[in-house]
C-alpha cells in the first residue's frame, strides 16, 4: 500500500497546503495540515462553502494542492495519476448521479476493478462482494437510474468498495436518505472501519457524528479550526458557534441543564437519559 514506507501508519498526510481553483482566483484552502492514520474513522464538519469537499478532494489527487504536499498511502498526489491513487483512496461523491454512468448496476460496479486489469473472475468476485455489502445483489441486472435515491447512493459506495481501497472518503453519505437508508449506509461504513479500513465522512448531520464517529475535524473558511475527539469538539459551544454549527439537540439540552449538576457533554440520547436518571433518582 505505502510506497515509500516512511510513515506506514499514516493513510492521509496533508502538509501545509493551499489551494485555488484558478491561478488568479483567491485561495480556498489556507495552509491546512492534517494527518489521518490507518484504521481511523474521522468526520469533517463545517458550514456550506467552508472548504470540506475541496480539502477531501486533495486526499486522492482529484485536486492537487497549489502549494504544500498531500501524501495518500505514502504517495505524493502530485506525482501519481488519479487512477493510481484510486487504489489507495476511494472517493464517493455527494450526489451519486455525478458518479454513476453505466447503464446496469453490475457494469457500474465492475468499471473500477476492470481498470485495475484484474482477471475476470477477480472482478466478478469483487463486484459480488461489493453489491452484497450494500445490499444490492438482487438488483445487479437492473438499470442504475431506475434505482431509488437511497439505492443509487449505495451503488455509488459499492463501485468504490469494489476497488478495495484502504481509505474511503464519503461526501454527505446520508443526504436525501430516509432513516432506514441512512442507517444502512452508516452500518456499512462502521463495519468497513472495524475491518481496518480508514473512513472519512463529510457531513452536516451532527447526530450521525455524535453517535458514530470518534474523531472530528472542523473546517471553516478554508482552515482547520478544530481537530479532536468528537465529544470535546461537539461540546465546545464557542468553537461551534464560530464555525456556524450546532451540536446535536441532546447535547444542547444537556448544556442547558448543566446548572442542575447534569454533565453537559452528553452526545447521545442514551447518555443523557442515563445522566438524568442518575440525577433525578438522587444517586451519587
Amino acid at each position, binding site marked *: 500500500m505505502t510506497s515509500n514506507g516512511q510513515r506506514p501508519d499514516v493513510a492521509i498526510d496533508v502538509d501545509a497546503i493551499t489551494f485555488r481553483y484558478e491561478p488568479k482566483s483567491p485561495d480556498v484552502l489556507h495552509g491546512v495540515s492534517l494527518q489521518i492514520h490507518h484504521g481511523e474513522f474521522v468526520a469533517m464538519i*463545517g*458550514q*456550506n*462553502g467552508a472548504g470540506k469537499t475541496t480539502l477531501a478532494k486533495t486526499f486522492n489527487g482529484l485536486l492537487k494542492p497549489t502549494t504544500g504536499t498531500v501524501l495518500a498511502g505514502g504517495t505524493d498526489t502530485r506525482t501519481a495519476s488519479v487512477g493510481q491513487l484510486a487504489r489507495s483512496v476511494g472517493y464517493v461523491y*455527494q*450526489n451519486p448521479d455525478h458518479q454513476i454512468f453505466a447503464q446496469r448496476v453490475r457494469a457500474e460496479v465492475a468499471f473500477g476493478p476492470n481498470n485495475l486489469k484484474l482477471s475476470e473472475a477477480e472482478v466478478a468476485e469483487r463486484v459480488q462482494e461489493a453489491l452484497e455489502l450494500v445490499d444490492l445483489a438482487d438488483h445487479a441486472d437492473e438499470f442504475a437510474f431506475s434505482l*431509488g*435515491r*437511497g439505492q443509487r447512493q449505495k451503488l455509488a459506495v459499492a463501485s468504490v468498495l469494489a476497488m478495495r481501497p484502504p481509505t474511503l472518503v464519503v461526501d*454527505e453519505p446520508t*443526504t*436525501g*436518505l*430516509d*432513516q*432506514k*437508508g441512512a442507517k444502512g449506509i452508516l452500518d456499512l461504513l462502521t463495519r468497513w472501519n472495524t475491518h481496518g479500513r480508514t473512513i472519512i465522512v463529510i457531513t*452536516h448531520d*451532527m*447526530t450521525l457524528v455524535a453517535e458514530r464517529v470518534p474523531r472530528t475535524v472542523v473546517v471553516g473558511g478554508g482552515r482547520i479550526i478544530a481537530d479532536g475527539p468528537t465529544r470535546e469538539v461537539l461540546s465546545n459551544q464557542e468553537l461551534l458557534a464560530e464555525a*456556524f*454549527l*450546532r451540536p*446535536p*439537540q*441532546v447535547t*444542547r*439540552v444537556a448544556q*442547558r*441543564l448543566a446548572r*442542575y*449538576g*447534569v454533565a453537559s457533554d452528553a452526545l447521545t*440520547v*442514551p447518555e*443523557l*437519559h442515563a445522566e*438524568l*436518571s442518575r*440525577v*433525578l*433518582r*438522587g444517586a451519587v
Partner: protein
Amino acid sequence: MDRSMEPIIEVSGLHFRYASGKRDALDGIDLTIRRGEFVGVTGPSGAGKSTLCQCLKGIIPAGTFTGNVRVAGQDVKPRGPYMESSALVFQDPETQIIGLTVAEDLAFGPENLQRDPSQIRAAIPGYLKTVRLSGYEDAETYRLSGGQKQRLAIADALILLPDILILDEPTSELDPIGKDEVFEVVAALRRERAVTVVMVEHAAEQLAEMADRIILMDHGRIVADGPPDELYHGEGFFHRPDGERSPQVAQLLVALERDGLVDAARFTAREDEAVALLSEMLEARAGVPAGD
C-alpha cells in the same frame, strides 16, 4: 390562523399508480388541510410523499389517477388547467431551475403568468435577499452550489405569491444554519400572508418546532396524522429501532417516561418546553432533603 379555518385542500379516496408501477404509489389518501396550516409530511423513501406533492400541485405524472382532489376551490385532474393558487418546490432543484442566470430563472414563473415585467424585475432583489442570494442576479445558475440551487428554487416559488406553498425536502442539501433559514422564511411568510404550507421533511426536530400537524406516510397511505406532541409520542412508528427518527427530546422524554420518571401527560416534542419540564423536575429534586 384563526382568520379563517376553512379547508383549502381536500383530498378523498385518492389513488395513483405510475404507468410502469406494480402497485399504487398513492393508495387511498383522505386529507383535509385548513387555510394557514403548516403540515409536515414525513415517512420512508417510496412512501408516496413526492407523488402526493405533485398531485396537490396539479402536476399529475403519467399513470392512473382516481379520487377527488380539490385545492383552493379548483378540482385537480390529469391535464387540468394550471393552478395559480399553489407553488411547488421540487425535491431536486435541478429539475426546476431553467434560467441561464439567477434573475432570468426567477422571472420565468411570473412572466408566464403574464405579470407586469417591470414589477417582476423590481421584486427580484427582495426575493434574493429572502433566500440569502443577494447580488446573484447575473450569476449563471449552473455554477451555483447545491445549497444555493435549493435556495433559488425556493425563491422561484415565493415570487409566484402562492396561497399554498408545497415544499418537497427543501433543506436536504443545506447545512444546519441553512435549514434554520428555510424554516424562518416559511415562518415569516405565514406571519405576513397566512400562507398554507405543506412540507416534506426528515428534519424531525425542526418540524416539531414549526408544524401545526405532521403526517406520516408509508406505502402510499397516511398511517398517522396529528400535532407533533401527539405524533412523536406514539410508540407505533417512532420509538423503536427500525422506526422513523423523532426529535431527540422526544426520544429522551419517552425513555424517562418508561422509567416512571416523567408523567406521560407532560410529553413535548419541542426543545424549550422539554428543557422547562426537566428544569422544573431537577429543581424539585434539589429541594428534596439529602438522604431521601
